[in-house]
């Protein structure tokens, strides 16, 4: 009973807050002196708080009339808190979103229209951003967010294991076939060493689908097309790995894949550039390379954005802060200096410092991967979409249904979802 009551209580307290907020009309203070802009972030805590504080100091020095107050939350709690604040009429003036959640917020009317402000601001030049990253945060022709940071996924490989097995290192010319051939040679299941690791989940699936020349949705996003022959073949490619060149879930026994790579259990590992700092002190040599191609090359492109609330009382000041946070030279430099993700800007000077850092040696691959980006398929009901596809992939992996059946069932559900959520 207690749990049920808790869930119900949480829902309704939120409702109460909304009603309360509707009555408490905002008394807009005459902004003659200092204005405080609030900022809510998941990416700063706990590792980059000092960098953020330093950035705020620089910003406040440049804009003496604006003060920034920030709060942080871990990614896993961030969106629950944010939703509750917005529902309660207490939305932070500015906050972070990731690409997957952006679309839902932008279409719900919670975000400030940045195109309007940008037009009246001669100092703002969208050309400084990497174009795909800038476009990623618009809906139709309206810009709702500025690209703050990006990351992508590469093929990590354990050089020592390759040398020991006498297999040449992977190159950017590799295809799926080369990867599988090498993985087979590198696998030594009795020793618990596996040639490859590529998890079977939503994010990997939509990428291999793109690598295999398929599309997730039709052009108008009214129908799911991931159950096409290209999609089935892509899933079969993922399914061909566990039990042969990669541990099954039971063989992996719930150990995290990053821990296993660090222990030298994987020769190849598909993972993101955010793992660079965690893998700094391995006992073996490793490097990265752009992922092997299927029919074509396709690489994940993940981006975070900074946005302003449509309800903010200080749109101009919020805009200044967003501009500074995403794309100013100060901000780009500070991020690179503290390995706090990369800003998606065309700032060669800042990137050269990044490319000089070691390991890995082949950091250029991070930028090369941007030549063939594939973005996360997003719809308004993003969490439900990922839940449906994720479950279908699990069923296929457990052998409960064939790849074709799993994808067909998931596509049927997603189509219903597209109709329901408009």
């Amino acid at each position, binding site marked *: *009973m*207690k*749990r*049920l*009551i808790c*869930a*119900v*209580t*949480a*829902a*309704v*307290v*939120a*409702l*109460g807050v*909304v009603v309360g907020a509707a009555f408490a009309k905002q008394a807009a203070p005459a902004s003659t002196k200092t204005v405080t802009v609030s900022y809510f972030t998941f990416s700063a805590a706990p590792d980059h708080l000092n960098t953020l504080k330093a950035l705020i100091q620089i910003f406040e020095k440049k804009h003496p009339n604006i003060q920034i107050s920030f709060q942080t939350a871990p990614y896993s709690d961030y969106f*629950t808190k944010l*939703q*509750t604040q*917005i*529902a309660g009429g207490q939305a932070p003036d500015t906050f972070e979103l990731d690409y997957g959640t952006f679309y*839902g*917020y932008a279409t*719900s*009317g*919670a975000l400030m229209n940045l195109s309007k402000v940008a037009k009246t601001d001669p100092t703002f030049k969208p050309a400084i951003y990497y174009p795909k990253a800038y476009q990623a945060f618009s809906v139709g022709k309206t810009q709702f967010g500025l690209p703050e940071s990006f990351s992508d996924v590469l093929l990590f490989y354990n050089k020592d294991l390759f040398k020991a097995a006498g297999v040449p290192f992977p190159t950017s010319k590799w295809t799926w076939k080369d990867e599988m051939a090498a993985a087979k040679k590198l696998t030594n299941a009795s020793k618990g060493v596996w040639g490859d690791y590529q998890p079977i989940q939503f994010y990997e699936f939509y990428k291999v689908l793109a690598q295999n020349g398929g599309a997730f949705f039709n052009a108008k996003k009214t129908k799911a097309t991931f159950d096409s022959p290209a999609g089935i073949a892509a899933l079969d490619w993922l399914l061909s790995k566990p039990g042969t060149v990669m541990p099954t*879930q*039971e*063989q*992996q*026994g*719930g*150990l995290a894949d990053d821990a296993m790579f660090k222990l030298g259990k994987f020769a190849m590992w598909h993972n993101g550039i955010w793992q660079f700092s965690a893998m700094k002190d391995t006992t073996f040599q490793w490097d990265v390379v752009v992922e092997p191609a299927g029919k074509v090359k396709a690489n994940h492109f993940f981006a975070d954005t900074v946005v302003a609330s449509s309800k903010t009382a200080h749109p101009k000041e919020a805009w200044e802060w967003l501009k500074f946070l995403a794309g100013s030279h100060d901000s780009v430099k500070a991020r690179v200096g503290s390995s706090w993700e990369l800003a998606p800007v065309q700032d060669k000077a800042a990137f050269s410092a990044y490319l000089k850092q070691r390991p890995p040696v082949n950091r250029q691959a991070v930028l090369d991967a941007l030549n063939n980006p594939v973005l996360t398929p997003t719809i308004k*009901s993003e*969490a*439900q979409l990922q*839940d449906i596809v994720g*479950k279908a992939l*699990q*069923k296929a992996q*457990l052998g*409960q249904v064939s790849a074709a059946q799993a994808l067909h069932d998931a596509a049927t559900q997603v189509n219903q979802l597209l109709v329901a959520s408009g």
Partner: protein
Amino acid sequence: MVGQRGWRFRLIVALFLAPSLIPLIMFLIVPMLASVGLSFASWDLLTHPRWVGTANYRGLVHDGEFHAALLHTLYFVAGYLPLVFCGGLLLALALHQRLKGVAWLRTLYFLPVVTSWVVVALVWKWLLNPQYGIVNRLLGFVGVQGPGWWLDPHWAMPSIILASAWKDIGFTMVIFLAGLQAIPEEYYEAASLDGAGRWSRFRNITFPLLSPASFFVVVISLINNVQVFDQVWVMTQGGPAGSTSVVVQQIVQNAFSFGRMGYAAAMSWVLFGVILVITVVQLRLQKRWVVYA
């Protein structure tokens, strides 16, 4: 006399009740009533709630995921209840004797009850780890290939049931112990004089006189465990492939992950209805089997 129980008396009563009554109304009664309204609305927390009539309830009728979650919940309860009932009863009988160190043993068995579910679930996840867990290791010594436990869709729910029974068995034990202590010793003496054996004494004295305790255990266990959530969330999150999804987990997921507050509220009220029906049926049936000595 009647005058003393007038408004003045009531005011004093209200005053003394206020410290617990006000939070109760604010954080329980009002939210519960408001959630009735919410269950007829569509609300994603970002935009204003929209009245949708009975659409949420009608949606539940056709929601395969919700039906699966209801079935999984019943499966859980059906596996869990006999284990904690029989296990708790056996433990209570064993520890109802004047043995050395019995108090210490009782404490030991009760310890899991007051331990956080997150801790217990994590420990059981490791015990039942198919690759590195001690359970499969021990099974291996006697030549049995252990199952995949929480990573295997057929074994995931039994894993959760096992962990849950282990945690709660101490609670039912305490209830039964209290029940046992209320049975007068004379009954047993009289029965012994008449030549009743151990089994006969248990069947004809202990079990019937323990029926109020049994009834309490069944009612409380059902009410609590139709709402099973914590252990599922920590051990499997409803997986693998949805094989352990339960109703409260669906409520949480719909409310806080999918942004479907109204739908989740409707689910909560359906669950409330299910619990209410189960409990009312039990209260009706108790007259046929519960004996108050």
